[in-house]
């Protein structure tokens, strides 16, 4: 009887829930580079796509990924209206280098500081780089772990799909 009850409850749980593929973003309060508090649950882009890229100053593939996206960002914005949030998981050891580094490479992303990994853990990120694409309703429609040269082609394809 207990087993049936357990199975019933679990079945109800799965029927009543969404998973990450159609989930909105968890609500965690993070700081941006100007010291403003930003609630991640309220990230919006006027109905246009959002990309969330987890990175760190000590993560070489992360910087390669974001440096590459930076070359295409203007073009992607014009085509699809996408907005990129680059969320750094640098802790107190390296977080003070984030703003000087970001400015030195002229990234035009919205940078958020996730110093104790609350947001990255809530998003199920194991290790950076981990990239999410959200549609205009804030639902995750694509995600990718790691970065290989050429991944920007796949990202572009996914963004164009959202435009259609």
């Amino acid at each position, binding site marked *: 009887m207990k087993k049936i009850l357990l199975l019933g409850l679990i079945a109800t749980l799965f029927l009543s829930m969404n998973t990450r593929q159609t989930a909105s973003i968890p609500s965690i309060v993070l700081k941006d580079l100007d010291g403003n508090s930003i609630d991640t649950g309220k990230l919006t882009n006027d109905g246009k796509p959002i990309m969330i890229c987890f990175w760190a100053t000590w993560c070489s593939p992360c910087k390669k990924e974001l440096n590459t996206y930076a070359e295409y960002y203007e073009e992607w914005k014009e085509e699809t209206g996408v907005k990129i949030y680059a969320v750094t998981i640098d802790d107190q050891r390296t977080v003070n280098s984030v703003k000087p580094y970001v400015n030195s490479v002229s990234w035009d992303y919205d940078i958020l500081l996730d110093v104790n990994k609350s947001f990255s853990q809530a998003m199920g990120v194991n*290790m950076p780089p981990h990239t999410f694409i959200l549609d205009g309703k804030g639902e995750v429609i694509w995600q990718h772990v790691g970065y290989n*040269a050429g991944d920007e082609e796949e990202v572009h394809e996914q963004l164009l799909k959202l435009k259609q």
Partner: protein
Amino acid sequence: MAEGFFISNLRLQKSKQAMSRLKSLLLILAALPYIAHAQSTENPQPQPETKGQLHGNFQVLFQQYSPDSSIGAQVPEPKAAMNAFGNFTYTHGGLSAGVRFESYQNSILGFPSRFKGSGIGSRYVRYAKDNFDITIGNFYEQFGNGMTLRSYWEPNLGIDNALDGVRVIFRPVNGITLKAVYGQQRFDFDSKIINGNGIVRGADGEVTINDLIKSLAEKPLRVSLGGSFVSKYQSGSTVERDSTVFTLPNNVAAYGGRLGVIYKNLQFTGEYVMKCNDPNADNNYIYKNGTGIFMNLAYSMKGFGITGSAKYIDNMAFRSDRNALLFDVPINFLPAITRQHTYNLAATLYPYATVLNGESGVSGEIFYTFKKDSPLGGKYGTYISLNVAAVNSLDTTHMGGRDELIDGYKTNSFFFGETKFVRDVNFEIRKKINKSWNINLVHYYFEFNTLVTPVTQDFKGLVYANIDVVDVQWKFKPKHAIRMELQSLLTQQDKGNWATGLVEYSFSPHWSLAVLDQYNYGNDNADKRVHYLYGNLGYSTGSTRIMVGYGKRRAGIFCIGGVCRAVPASNGIEINLTSSF
């Protein structure tokens, strides 16, 4: 025979208990939609119809061990080991609940060997609505820079000092955040969470002036102030030193204040913390008060950034168990001031970690990008960075006699003491040559005191090392690339010279194949001039990534985010699977 039966019976009982606990948790998790629904119907305000959401992630790390006397590889009795975890978080409106299932069969070498069995490693329920947020169960939190309190989870290092209790966050008005925590820290895992002996209580407040006073909201000068207080309780004890019995305090407090200022392109952060008398195993049970100072000043503009930091740590090891050491139940976090390096030889042979008992250090970093179409920038621009860090012992005087038994030493100034702990100078050039070719050049110079940071058993003293890295990437088709790394480490101390070569082929977005060879060609002992050959194949799809590796891994220090753990030499197959949903 009877003993074997007894043990297996005991294991069966333990397994049944674990299953029972798991079932109870699943019941709680499964019942959450009903609880959440009941909550939403109690709310008189009309709510949009929302569905609950289940998020989670997994990691399975498997390692098979083969004997290899040439590198001193250890082979545990089971000849293989596996660490795994799965996080499940259910969210419905403001209510969320999470559980983490962990399994160590047995734990991978390099992780705490006492982690064993399978069971629940974390569980919590959280309710967050408007300006109020409460969590009951396991949670992670950081006050300020973490020098008074930081609980965090780093699964790749086996670190989890989660607090188990209650956390309340309250934002009475825009611009003010108040936090309070009360609980015990996770210490161990043996088919269930095992908490440490002590109890941790703390409160933190932060005011962002520009958010609090509306007329200042758009001003270029942004100021935030914060303060924290943390106290630990551990039942009393005594320690005998030099025929004198000392009573150890039950309650120990740490507190601090911090300031953050941003003015246009300039930013400053500073924090000063103190700790009351805290005799513990780190400081050899002295009663001296602790002090910590961390300051950073940075300026940046498009194409340029500069930052400078100063850090002073005196007797600031702070744990919820006075007898604990190393990675066990730390309440606070004292980050190193040196840069965290990414290239293998620099990152794993001589990584610096903060000396908790005392150090004084400074660092500086400059980033600059030569503009596109300038003589040094070329078509795509050229990025350069210079980073310098220096850390020494404290400037102290030993007191002698009975005073030394009680307070240990006297601090004379905030400046450098006589003993050099580390010097780290590194310079990087990154250049995109054309659409197909990228090159990255890095030079490091280290002076590293292995007496203070014991990263090697082969040499005690100052290691002087020069490391050079050439990293070239050739993208020969839109989704195909080959990356090559050549690294050289030259030193006359420790294990002598090293060379590393890496070739990696990637086929975006799914596949990567890499072969790495590390060669300790400069070792004085000819038998230890070994090639550490290792290959791995990676496949990524969506949120899932699997890596299969095979070969020799040298003993070294593996670091993430400023925390390092020693990893023994091994030879065998390694599989790492991560996924999230």
